[in-house]
């Protein structure tokens, strides 16, 4: 395992990606698609994390999970995009600041 002594760099990258995704969810209020992209970014960070640990611990389970997450992320983004499209068709807008129908 000598070639992977510097795991913290990888983990730092994945954490940075994760926080960037969170930041995107919080701060981006223009476009629902950007939120979706941020969620994809978070999932990507998680994936990277899984793979890094899988290699680091020499365990195949992490890569298995990474594959699953890839699938789930694809399905999720497909459904999310579908919702956004339907929403846009109904209301003609995907500006987050105006979307508050969750309340009732």
């Amino acid at each position: 395992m000598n070639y992977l002594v510097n795991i913290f760099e990888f983990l730092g990258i994945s954490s940075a990606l994760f926080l960037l995704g969170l930041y995107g969810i919080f701060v981006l209020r223009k476009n629902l698609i950007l939120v979706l992209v941020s969620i994809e970014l978070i999932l990507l960070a998680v994936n990277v994390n899984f793979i890094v640990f899988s290699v680091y611990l020499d365990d195949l389970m992490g890569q298995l999970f990474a594959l699953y997450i890839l699938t789930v992320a694809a399905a999720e983004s497909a459904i999310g995009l579908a919702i956004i499209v339907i929403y846009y068709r109904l209301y003609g807008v995907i500006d987050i600041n105006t979307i508050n129908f969750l309340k009732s």
Partner: protein
Amino acid sequence: MYTLIIFLPLIAFFIVGFFGRYLGRIGSSIITTGSVTLSAIFSIIAFYNVAICKSTQLVSLLTWFAIYPLNIKWGFFFDTVTVTMLIVVTFISALVHLYSIEYMKNDPHLPRFMAYLSLFTFFMLMLVTGENMAIMFLGWEGVGLASYLLINFWHTRLQANKSAIKAIIVNRIGDFGLGLGMLAIFHIFHTLDFLTIFALTPSVVDAKLTFLNFEINSLDLISIFLFIGAVGKSAQLGLHTWLPDAMEGPTPVSALIHAATMVTAGIFVLVRCSPIIEYAKDALTIICIMGGLTAFFAATVGMLQNDMKRVIAYSTCSQLGYMAFACGMSAYSVSMFHLMNHAFFKALLFLGAGSVIHAMSDEQDMRRMGGLVRLLPLTYSVIFIGSLSLMGFPFLTGFYSKDLILEIASSYYTIEGRFVYWLGTISAFFTAFYSMRLLYLSFIARPNSSKIILEEVHEAPLFMAISLLILSIGSIFVGYVFKDAFVGLGTDFWNNSIYMQPHSIKTFDSEFIPANVKMIPVYFSLTGAFLSFVFYNFYPSILLNWNLTPFGIATYRFLNKRWYFDIIYNNYIVQHILKFGYKVTFKILDRGFIEYIGPYGLVNIIKTISIKMSTIQSGYIYHYAFIMVFSSVIIMFFIIYDLMNFKSGNGFIYDDFIIAALFLIFFSFSDYSLLAKRVASKK
């Protein structure tokens, strides 16, 4: 027969109270008066049996309640003190009944009135004959109740309502004292039977009781409590304010309450409990001083009252002061003697005043009377007899007891003895002064009422005249006839019903004080009466001029307004208690504090919090996202923090953090969401 004495008035009350409207005024008068008269006749027989033939009676009827140490029986106990009171109560009551038939002739509620009178008599009889303190207390409270009903007899009058409420509430203060006394007695003696208590008293002389964190000699404490009861009922200084106001009732009621029954109950309790009080030196001193002050206070106040009945009411108060300080000097027999004599002449005075008021078309103000001596010769003579008797004119009833009290005071060689001796003597002066003033203003002065009223003046009708005559005979002769029996030298009349310690018997000393000292009260009385007559008859200008000086006005106000007692009580006690009741117990506690932590406040808090919490759900996606992330961060923080503290063995801060977090969630989030709403509405 002994039971009948007590229960005949009760039977009459029930019959007349329930069926008065069917019996009519004649029927109800006959039933009540007849039963009380029968009771009076039986009391004479009882007096003969018990007091003269010396056979004390104990009538035990039923068990009221029995809880192991406390065993209360319906028992009635007839010793000499009791039968003396019986004679007084039933006699005066029977005469008052007779008098009321005529006096209340035109009142539409005569049956009710007679029923109340009988009820009053019954409770009074129960009070004096009770074998234990519970029965006595029943009578005590019953007398208060009956006095309420009687003072409030004309219940459509506001003033009568107020007076009756005042009477029963001020009495209730004293009743509370008596109740505490009963509790203390039960605590010490484990019984309420008089005979047991009195037999056990010498064995608890040194017992202590803790009251309000003070260690007090138990007998002193008990005696002071009993005296507080007597203060309320017998209108001693401090709780006397109800008595003059009780004049709002019909005059026979005043005669019954003030002459024979209610006000004597307090003195009766002191005399009855003489075996206890006798061992309480400090309490005796207090009783003595309070009695002397009452006598003095009431005598000075009575001097400048203008209402005829109020003058007599204050003289009652004053004479009760005499009785109380006689008790305080351990001269219980003399006190009892004065009680009996006072009952006769005070009933006479009240009924005579009633006759005047009846004749004058219900005018009570003495300043609007005058010149009645020719119109009401009988009433004048009986009031004259009563007044002479009251001021202790030699060889009338009052002389034998009142001067004896002062003689005993003069031979009571302590500070309080001197104190009450001089107060009593000066009060005798004032007593004579106001008695003469009453006589002069209402009978001898020039007429001050209107011609219409004077044309209507009529002498007392037959029944009223009969009771007045009997009472005036009593006022002349009772003192002389019973002197040797009651307070004669070495009399065994009391027959152990009164206990005096040997060292406090002053009967012998008082007989051998110098003659000029003995004469001082008589001189004072005669001077008072003489001065009063001379001033009012020959030199009214002196009185007028004196009354116009600033000092004169101040004095007149001070005395006429009863030493400002009522004003002080109303302004500094009653008002504050009422304010406390409204502002503190009602507004702050009842409708304030308890409401806030109870239904109202709890509902409000939950309502506001739930509204705030629901505003967290603003509907905006990024709010939900923020809450999600923020909460997960917080939870993570807690878990990490808890793990850290768990390791160091210090896990309590966790709770504080949870409380802080809840606080933040409740209050900050809602504000945040409100802010967000404002932002949203701006857009």
